[in-house]
Structure formats: C-alpha cells, structure tokens
C-alpha cells in the first residue's frame, strides 16, 4: 500500500518539482530559541526561516534567557509572539526540565508544529518532547513540501527521503545549512511569560569546556578549510590555521584527524559531526569517506588538495590539486 501511494505521488508530480509551501492558515508553530551568553544561536535563525515557510503563526519560546534574548527575537520578521520562561535553571538546556516545559507550552497553546535547530540541544530535547506527546519526530529536515510533508537526508546523505507525518503535532529539527538565516526586521512581537512548570532537578549541570577561537563559527562560516589524516599531526594544523586566517575561514577536520588527536572533536565535519555548506570548502589531506562527504557535499565550491590522485574526494571536488599538501598549503598562504 505504501509503495502504491509513493508511485502515485511520483507520477502526479514531476521529480524535483518546484516546491510549494502551504499557505497554512492552520499552522501554529512553536520555535525553540537556543541561546548562549545572551546571543541567539545561528541555527535558531535558520529554523525560524523554515518555520515561516509553513505559513501561519510562529511563537518563539525563550527559556532560561535574559530579557535581552526575548527582546531580540521579537524583532525578527515572522515572529508573532514571544514566550519567556525566565527561570535561570533552563539556561543549561537540561532535557529533563526543558522537555516538560515544551510539552506544557505546546498543549496549552495548541501548537501544531514545534521547530528547533538540529543542534546538540535540539537533538537532545525534541525527541523527548515528541515521546511525551506520543508523536513522531522528524530530524534534520532540509526542505518543506507542505505542513505535514518534509524532506530529509538518510544514509549519510546518500538518499533523500520525502516523509509525511500523520501526527497532530509535528516535532521537527531543521538542518541550518538548508535554510537562510532570518533577518532582524524591526518587528515588535509581544513578549509574554510562559506557564510555570515544576522542575525535576534530577540532572545537575557540572561544567563545560568550550573551544575558544577567533575564527568564524564552523557551522555558519562562508569558507571552511578542513584537514584529515594527511596532516600527520596536530602541530601541522598550524599550516591550515595560517591559510584560514588569510581567507577568513573556519577550520574543520575529518574523523581520522580528530581520532588521531590532531584537533578537538568539536571540529569534526561529517555524518556524526558538524554539517557545513559554505561557499568554499577546502579539503586538505582528506580521502573523502562517505561519512565525511555527508557533512560537506552541499558546499558551493569544493577544493581538494591531496597527493593521492585516486582519493574519492576528487570525485566531488570542483577543483582538485594533486600535490603534497606540505608544499601546496604554504604556497597558497603566501600567494593570497
């Protein structure tokens, strides 16, 4: 039966047909605003763009934030209302407390959709919310066909599925790189307090170690330079940092480079690391395993520098240079 439906669907509409977006008088969307140190996360602004494509209304929820975050999101076009749960305990995004809040807010406002970025926070919290509401969750969407039909990559991006949710509430995380970031637009949405929900206090936040860097954020950078096993050690990454600084690029890495301890885990690009889609992606000493390609193959222009002419990375690279990276990278840095 499933197969028949799918076939009818394909017949009825040409492949890669221009997407239509529901005018959606019915969509009533809750956007979960992720924030840190008073700043709204980039992924939230991408998720806001996705949410506005449903039509209908978008209500932003700021949990654990200072007023400034609520005032800030209220200015974005498409936000009709802002709810705040000001208790500071929410600021660590602990799912045991955040999920019940989202459930309560969703039920009391009859939200039809809950959207968040597909980030460590979004991934952690939204499936828990979905289970508490007894609905499915749709992860990492890259497109919206209608109010209940979404596009998402599966098998490390080697297949693209169009999926339709039959549930009354759609719990969705959004791939940031698939949607433009929403812009501030002098909007002035009303800010209201969300209902109070009892805290469980079962999990305690102990601390964090954030990698500090002056370079652009990997997830949103226009240019990314990544190193792989071919870098040989952590010290050699300095070659990439120098080139990145010349180009205003962020630095990423393959799993091999992370596992070998060359760089921190948070720099990993791939199926299980960050998904990036910059204007320019430069892969240096990276062979191009399926799992790495999953994280970068939607980049606009891909450059590969590798001494192995048969490396799979060259099959997706717009420009491939077969050369020793220890010669090519310093030369590039010097000539830029």
């Amino acid at each position, binding site marked *: 039966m499933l197969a028949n439906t799918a076939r009818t669907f394909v017949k009825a509409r040409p492949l890669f047909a221009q997407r239509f977006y529901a005018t959606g008088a019915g969509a009533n969307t809750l956007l979960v605003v992720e924030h840190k140190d008073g700043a709204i996360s980039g992924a939230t602004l991408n998720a806001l763009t996705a949410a506005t494509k449903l039509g209908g209304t978008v209500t932003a929820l700021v949990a654990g934030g200072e007023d400034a975050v609520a005032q800030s999101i209220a200015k974005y076009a498409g936000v009709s209302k802002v709810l705040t749960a000001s208790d500071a305990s929410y600021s660590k995004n602990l799912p045991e407390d955040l999920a019940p809040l989202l459930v309560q807010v969703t039920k009391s406002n009859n939200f039809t959709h809950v959207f968040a970025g597909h980030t460590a926070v979004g991934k952690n919290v939204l499936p828990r919310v979905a289970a508490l509401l007894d609905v499915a*969750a749709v992860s990492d969407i890259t497109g919206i066909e209608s109010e209940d039909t979404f596009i998402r990559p599966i098998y490390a991006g080697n297949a693209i599925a169009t999926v339709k*949710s039959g549930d009354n509430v759609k719990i969705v995380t959004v791939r940031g790189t698939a949607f433009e970031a929403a812009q501030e637009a002098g909007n002035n949405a009303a800010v209201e307090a969300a209902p109070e929900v009892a805290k469980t206090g079962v999990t305690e936040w102990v601390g964090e170690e954030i990698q500090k860097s002056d370079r652009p954020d990997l997830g949103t950078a226009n240019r990314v330079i990544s190193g792989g096993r071919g870098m040989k050690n952590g010290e050699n990454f300095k070659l990439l940092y120098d080139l990145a600084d010349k180009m205003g690029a962020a630095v990423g890495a393959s799993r091999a480079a992370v596992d070998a301890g060359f760089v921190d885990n948070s720099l990993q690009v791939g199926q299980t690391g960050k998904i990036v889609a910059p204007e320019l992606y430069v892969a240096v000493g990276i062979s191009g395993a399926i799992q790495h390609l999953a994280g970068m193959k939607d980049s606009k222009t891909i450059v590969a520098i590798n001494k192995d002419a048969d490396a799979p990375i060259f099959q997706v690279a717009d420009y491939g240079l077969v050369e020793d990276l220890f010669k090519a990278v310093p030369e590039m840095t010097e000539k830029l």
Partner: protein
Amino acid sequence: MSNPLRIFVPVKRVIDFAVKVRVNAGKTDVDRNVKHSMNPFDEIAVEEAIRIKEKAPKTEVVAISCGSAKAQETLRTALAMGADRAVHVEVKDDSTLQPLAVAKLLEAYTNKEEKKPDLFILGKQAIDDDSNQTGQMLAGLLNWPQTTFASKVEFEGQSLKVTREIDGGLETVKTKMPAIITTDLRLNEPRYASLPNIMKAKKKPLVKITPEDLGVDISPRIQTLKVEEPPKREGGRKVGSVDELLDKLKNEAKVL
C-alpha cells in the same frame, strides 16, 4: 554504583557503514540486499557496557534488538563481545519500524521484565535513518534522565557523571540512576569478538518476544512518500598548480 548493576543495550542491524547505498528502482527505499552489520554507535554502547562489567563483574549486560529474524545475528555479535543474554523483539517487516515504536517496545519490555535495568546504553544514532531519537524518546517514556552523546561515563555512588559532546566543546552533567546514556564516537574503541567468544555466544540465552506480547502498536507514524538519489555533483576537474587553483577560485568560481 549499585551492585549488581544491570545494563540493557539496544542494538540495531543496519546496512554496513562502508556500503555505498543506492535508491531502489521504485524510489520507495534503498536497496537492502547488501552487507549488514551492527550499527557502529551500538558497538560502542556494547563495549561500554562490557567495560563497566569488567570493573564490576556482577554486572549483567542484556542486548536487545527489535527487527526481523536477521536481527539475531546482531544479537549474537553483542553476545560474542561479552553481553550475557539477548532479547529479540521480532518484527516481521522492520523497514517501517520507527524510533517512537522502538522506544515503546523497549519501555514495555522494561516495565514487564522483573529484572529491571539500572542503565540503558544506546548508540546516539543509527546510520541508516540518521534520526538520533530513540534514546531520548525512551528516556521520556520511562521518565528517566538522559545523558546523550556521551564521550566519558563515570560512576559516583548512585550518581552518574557523564561528559557530553556539545556544539563547540564538551559539557559535564551529573544524574541519578536509572538513566539513559547514548554513545558518541569518542566514548571508546569497540573490541573485536574472538573466535572462542563467537562459539561461546552461540550457547548464551536468547529469548524471542513479539510486539503483541508487549502490547505495543508499532504502526508507522511517518510515511515515506519517496526516496531519491541526492543531486549529483559535477566533480572531478583537476588543476595543475597552486596558481591555477587560485586563479580559478578568483575568476571562475568567484569565491576568493
């Protein structure tokens, strides 16, 4: 840590990570007549449970898989790695088995089973549907705390201290058992099952139950309308020198 500790480890049989998947002719799914293995994150989950058992030998490790008859191969692999017993929740057609249904099966099994777990250790995501949902959903259904994307697990009495991989770095949280842990790649390096252990695993207990036994409705909530190949990239062009590369990036691609 409470002693004896009981750990449930759900494992999934998926298309092997090294296989390049292809969309089938009907555009309804991918071609599944290819090599399958245990989901790599689940191997890490099994390994972590066994390492805990190595420190606290009375620990019982129970591998559980929801899927077709072939899921038993995956369970035998877990037993060969060192799990004590296995539970197979047999689902005739597992191609439409979704995270919410799996979480409900695991919840129902937990509630029914007399020997309750102190911990569930799951992989953070299956590399086929890439959902990253089941552990979080199970935690919600059981109303247990969840520590996802774990790269380090420590016990402090009845509490668990878990280091989690988050955007930009690491975070540490402390929670109480019973709890759910999902594994990130960095948690450990899974062992290979030795031949003697593979032989021993054949004699370890494996019980089979059905969704009906557990009273769980596993019908899909999400319908797959179609599955397509991703857009092809026109790669493969090579340049001869750094100068040529920089020239192309400036004047052709206009990205510098």
